[in-house]
């Protein structure tokens, strides 16, 4: 008799804001098949290259199966028991606490932990708060400066991608390449074109998204404030902006108008290195297309030293063109569903000078030795944080580094003292949220060997620290039901979600900010921000020279004349699964780091397509393979952000002041996009 069992879950990658649905079938003989979930409201049964190969994560001989420990960083790892591993970690935390340095223990949780949204939003912060240790969230490299810009305008975007694309008449992918980073958006982007809308991509590179767009504008890297402000200049000059909306719902228009006069289209054309008619055409689209939506899903712009201003200048175009609070308008951005955040127990967090979740503060804490113990939960800093040679030195000085992951990764190999084996997403019960919906991630398998889910070992660790109520629930299901007790989640239960593989809609508005009340001090959309001024930022969106750029730092550019762009390919999700070296299908598609280079630059250096070169600057070097292509502009090179070779040369400059993070809780993205490099052929 057929005993096949079917489960529904979501893809284990963290594309933002919506993850595709998975249908998992377990056959009589215990073999598993993973396909797209045809009921899923957004992905409708389709999966991208990573989703299709995700069975290789679970069923993989390279999985970590038991806790490991080594006596010295050069030594070999030996198996130890969970009890011994947790005893040692607890002993170190207790000793830090006894010495009056709670903050010296830091927990960094990143995308591996974000796979389980409840772990990321509630269960891990709950552990850090109850234990009283430093907590760093792996979102800071992704979008934290974008968040500051949103906070300063009072407008978080948060429009649903599907609803927006179905209703919009113009979609602007501003510095976004959703085709590479969020393939499930593509049917919706194409729908805009099918509905006779216009799709515009603004990106210095020829991207996969540019290939699907009607118009592709290629401004010079880092000149977005000029482009956005020049568009505003034309809208105001031609009186084609939405005066009624601006007068009623925006704050500081007169100052903004005065400021924008300085950004003439002629000058913008020179600085952005694009013809003036391209700027005029863009302004025309802003003036005439309604509703118009800007896709700001990812934090690419925040990775510039001037990122906060870039995002602000772009956000200001939305109310200016009268596209706020309407269906099909606004900015597409992340997810908005709040869980029962009371469970984080923030009020029980003991006082201590915890280093903030801002890279400047993190860098300082590690550099000054304020942190001596690092617990890395589902992250890989020694691949993904900037300036790796500096980070290596900082890690060398740490007393204890614990890595909890599915596979050995760069951090575990280079700096790990204790390694803890993680469960895959099929081995635990979990939840996902998107911008509007909630989905169940059902438990399909028992954990492999000695792998344990994060909340389980955190519970055992808590008990060793004298905390008895970290996990007061009788089961994971009971825990998840408690997490769902919020206004947005409407108290839905796991059982209800199980019956709805298409997802259950949360209580969030379809057109955010339809009432035109914004999250700013004036409750209006702030074109001018007094708060920004108080935080030593320009109160109006202003272009500032980058900290490392061909024209901004010409002396440095003489030595390192190539501007490095960090980008994304479908085959990788950051450095997941040891940069996908352990996932055969993905590894075969991009087995080594590829540096895209313009034919002219390759010719100048005598490099052939496919040759290996050393990418270097004063911070470090990495070995990469050259791909000669006109996809990158001259004097620019680009590389997939999943490879540690990229971060050998990136800078740890963190221009976002710490006091901003103190105030907003976000800010402090490293300036991954402001990097000058040179390459040399291998002898």
């Amino acid at each position, binding site marked *: 008799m057929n005993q096949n069992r079917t489960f529904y879950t979501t893809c284990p990658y963290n594309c933002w804001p919506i993850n595709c649905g998975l249908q998992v079938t377990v056959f009589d003989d215990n073999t598993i098949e993973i396909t797209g979930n045809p009921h899923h409201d957004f992905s409708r049964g389709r999966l991208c290259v990573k989703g*299709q190969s995700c069975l290789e994560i679970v069923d993989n001989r390279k999985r970590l199966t038991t806790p490991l420990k080594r006596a010295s960083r050069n030594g070999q790892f030996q198996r130890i028991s969970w009890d011994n591993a947790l005893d040692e970690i607890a002993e170190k935390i207790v000793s830090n606490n006894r010495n009056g340095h709670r903050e010296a223990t830091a927990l960094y949780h990143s995308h591996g932990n974000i796979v389980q949204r409840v772990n990321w939003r509630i269960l891990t912060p709950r552990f850090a708060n109850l234990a009283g240790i430093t907590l760093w969230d792996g979102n800071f490299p992704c979008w934290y400066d974008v968040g500051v810009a949103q906070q300063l305008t009072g407008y978080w975007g948060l429009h649903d991608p599907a609803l927006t694309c179905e209703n919009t008449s113009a979609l602007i992918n501003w510095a976004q390449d959703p085709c590479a980073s969020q393939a499930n958006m593509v049917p919706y982007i194409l729908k805009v074109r099918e509905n006779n809308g216009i799709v515009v991509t603004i990106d210095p590179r020829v991207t996969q998204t540019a*290939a699907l767009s009607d*118009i592709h504008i290629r401004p010079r890297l880092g000149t977005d404030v000029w482009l956005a402000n020049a568009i505003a200049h034309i809208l105001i000059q031609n009186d084609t902006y939405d005066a009624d909306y601006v007068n009623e719902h925006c704050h500081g228009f007169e100052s903004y108008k005065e400021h924008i006069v300085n950004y003439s289209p002629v000058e913008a054309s020179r600085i952005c290195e694009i013809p003036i008619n391209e700027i005029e055409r863009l302004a025309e689209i802003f003036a005439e297309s309604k509703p118009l939506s800007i896709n700001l899903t990812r934090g690419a712009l925040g990775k510039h030293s001037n990122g906060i201003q870039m995002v602000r200048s772009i956000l200001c175009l939305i109310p200016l063109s009268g596209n706020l609070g309407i269906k099909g308008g606004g900015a597409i951005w992340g997810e908005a569903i709040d869980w029962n955040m009371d469970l984080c127990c923030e009020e029980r967090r003991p006082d201590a000078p915890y280093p903030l979740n801002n890279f400047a503060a993190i860098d300082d804490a590690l550099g000054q030795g304020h942190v001596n113990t690092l617990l890395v939960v589902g992250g890989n800093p020694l691949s993904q944080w900037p300036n790796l040679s500096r980070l290596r030195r900082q890690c060398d000085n740490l007393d204890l580094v614990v890595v909890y992951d599915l596979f050995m990764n760069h951090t575990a190999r280079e700096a790990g003292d204790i390694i803890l084996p993680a469960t895959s997403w099929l081995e635990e019960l979990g939840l996902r949220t998107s911008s509007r919906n909630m989905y169940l991630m059902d438990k399909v398998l028992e954990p492999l060997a000695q792998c344990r889910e994060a909340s389980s070992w955190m519970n055992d660790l808590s008990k060793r620290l004298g905390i008895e109520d970290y996990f007061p629930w009788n089961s994971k299901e009971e825990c998840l039901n408690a997490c769902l007790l919020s206004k947005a989640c409407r108290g839905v239960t796991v059982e209800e979600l199980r019956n709805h593989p298409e997802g259950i809609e949360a209580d969030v508005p379809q057109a955010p900010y339809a009432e035109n009340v914004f999250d700013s001090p004036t409750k209006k959309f702030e074109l001018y921000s007094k708060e920004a001024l108080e935080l030593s930022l320009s109160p109006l969106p202003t272009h500032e020279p980058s900290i490392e750029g061909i024209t901004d730092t010409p002396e440095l550019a003489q030595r390192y004349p190539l501007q490095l762009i960090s980008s994304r390919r479908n085959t990788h999700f950051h450095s997941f699964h040891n940069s996908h070296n352990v996932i055969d299908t993905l590894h075969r598609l991009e087995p080594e780091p590829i540096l895209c280079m313009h034919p002219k630059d390759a010719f100048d250096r005598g490099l052939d397509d496919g040759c290996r070169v050393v990418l270097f600057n004063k911070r470090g070097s990495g070995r990469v393979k050259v791909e000669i292509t006109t996809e990158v502009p001259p004097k620019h090179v680009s590389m997939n952000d999943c490879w540690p070779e990229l971060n050998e040369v990136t800078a740890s400059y963190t221009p976002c002041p710490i006091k901003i993070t103190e105030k907003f809780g976000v800010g402090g993205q490293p300036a991954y996009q402001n990097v000058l490099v040179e390459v040399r052929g291998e002898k």
Partner: protein
Amino acid sequence: MIKQHFFIFDPSQCFGCFGCVSACVNVNKTKEHWRRVFKLPPCNGMSDTLYLSMSCNHCEEPACVKACPTNAMTKRKKDGIVLHTCERCIGCKYCQMACPYGAIEWDEANKTVAKCTMCHERLDRGEEPACVSTCFGGALALKTVDSVEKIDVLSKEMIGFTHYNEAKPSIRFTQKFNVFDQKEHL
């Protein structure tokens, strides 16, 4: 007249995500990439990169079938799918050499060749081939024997792909959006 299924590919809707490659690996439980995605860099005045997703083209006059000394390669009458029978394969690789599209892979584990089956088992169940069903852009489609009379209106070639008349590959090209011209001139 031969009954033939056709792959239809639309370069204006393909963005090179490799989802089709991975879906093929996943569904067919193979390690080899029976389908491949080729990147065609901006050239000939085009401003964008194009992609070409291609597997075995199940040619109307397949060179592999002619080259195979053991009849391991056969062409099905009812739908023109070219199938490979592992048990009869002696691993001589003549088919690999003969195929003008490089669509035949070597399976090191079995010491035989291996290739796209057009997911004929899924087709028999009324499902689409794995690559077609997962395509986010809708760039890949299958025209079955029933709708084949309309095939003549579709292009036999695209940039980066030559239609060899000796083989008559069963792949056609369409364009929902115009990609072979420059982007809107600004």
